[in-house]
């Protein structure tokens, strides 16, 4: 479990995160949503440790990240998997070498064992026989899946995904969403996904945190988000006509049931 207590971050006198407190449970896909510039990327960077908040606590299963020394932080990072917006695969390595990379750096396995583990991770994300290709030779969706495979090679306890659907077609987006959800449940990982894709929210939102102008504005599940009365949240999710229609249908159904 990752628990945030009154996390605040300031840039040049501008408060980007305003005393955010929430918790992200294992086995759940936790989504952080919000408009561009709302502070969700800064929040994720603070949770990962790429930025340091001025105030607050970030507890990884009771271990406060902000009180850790360099060695403890290093050890914690080995429990973290990260899926970047543009996959961030290493261009100079093949797909298999990319997936093997964390094992090469942090495990004492022999080459054969490392290769077997990497291949099993590639199988898990439904990629077969592409280990010899370079990242430039595969599609955007495949890159995301390779990045997921790389993120799970060390069996992480925490998985962070930054805009996992950006640049993908709707069908591939759903495949990636489902894959993240399955892996989260299978390995009982605490997964935090940064997104503004409402399809993702409705597919994966076990726990949704809505950030508006650096403040935690709403927290709940995908079942409650459509019927929420929070104005700022409604302005955000019903910006598209599609979701306005979804809301009307949902309300209609509730009235029929009532």
């Amino acid at each position, binding site marked *: 479990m990752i628990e945030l207590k009154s996390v605040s971050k300031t840039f040049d006198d501008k408060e980007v995160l305003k005393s955010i407190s929430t918790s992200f449970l294992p086995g759940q896909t936790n989504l952080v949503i919000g408009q561009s510039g709302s502070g969700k990327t800064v929040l994720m960077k603070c949770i990962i440790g790429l930025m340091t908040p001025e105030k607050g606590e970030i507890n990884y299963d009771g271990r406060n990240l902000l009180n850790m020394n360099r060695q403890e932080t290093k*050890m914690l990072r080995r429990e973290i998997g*990260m899926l*970047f917006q543009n996959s961030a695969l290493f261009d100079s390595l093949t797909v298999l070498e990319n997936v093997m990379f964390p094992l090469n750096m942090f495990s004492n396995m022999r080459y054969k064992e490392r290769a077997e583990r990497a291949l099993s991770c590639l199988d898990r994300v439904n990629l077969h026989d592409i280990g010899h290709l370079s990242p430039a030779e595969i599609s955007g969706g495949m890159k995301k899946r390779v990045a997921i495979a790389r993120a799970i090679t060390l069996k992480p306890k925490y998985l962070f995904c930054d805009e996992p659907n950006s640049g993908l077609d709707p069908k591939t987006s759903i495949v990636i969403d489902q894959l993240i959800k399955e892996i989260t449940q299978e390995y009982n990982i605490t997964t935090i996904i940064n997104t503004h894709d409402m399809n993702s929210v409705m597919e994966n939102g076990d726990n949704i945190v809505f950030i508006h102008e650096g403040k935690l504005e709403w927290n709940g599940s995908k079942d409650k988000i459509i019927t929420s009365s929070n104005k700022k949240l409604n302005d955000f999710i019903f910006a598209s006509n599609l979701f306005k229609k979804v809301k009307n249908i949902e309300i209609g159904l509730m009235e029929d049931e009532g």
Partner: protein
Amino acid sequence: MSALNKVGEYTLLMQKVLTRPDRFRETCKQIVREMNNLGVSSIIIVLIISFFIGAVITIQIRLRVDNPMLPKYTTGLVTRDILLLEFSSTIMCLLLAGKVGSNIASEIGTMRITEQIDALDIMGVNSANFLILPKIVGLVLFSPILVIFSMIIGIVGGYMVSIFTDLITTDNYLYGLQTFFVPFYIKYSIIKTLVYSFLIASIAGYYGYYVKGGSLEVGKASTDSVVMSSITILIADLVLTQLLLT
């Protein structure tokens, strides 16, 4: 103030780079890869440039130093000393700063803007050490080979002038090469190249590592790294010459 900031940033980066690698085995693999990428791939250009510059220096010296008071072997002697003392180390490294330095800065800069460096950091890898140290070690280890090749081929270039033109006889050229030979000049040239290689790889690594923005900034970082490496090499040349030859 900005220059001082950069010196400070460079020093702090070098503190991170010059530490014990997380995985020695992986770093060794990277070093071998970099020796190939940065060193072996530069051999052809070094050989071509050294051959022609050696030939041109021989012709120029023969034409400019045309004094009956000077012995006939002067051309060979001066060509040898120019090649050993300055060309094969300083001028060759200025060329390498262009080829290798821009390569390093753009490679690391692209890794920065595509979040590959963030990926390393999040995994708990010392990204500066993992990316820059192998490049520094690879180039520093391979550069003496490039210097020696450059010296030999430069002298061969001059020798070809003595064979294919009637400006100087082969005997005079070869005699000039052997006259007043100081073996320390070779050591001096290699020492200078080791320092220059460190400067090229570390400065280019610094510019690439701290890129912010997109492809335009990567291009700018690449150019800045070449300019800064070249200036630093010239300053180091002055200091090392003063220290080692006086």
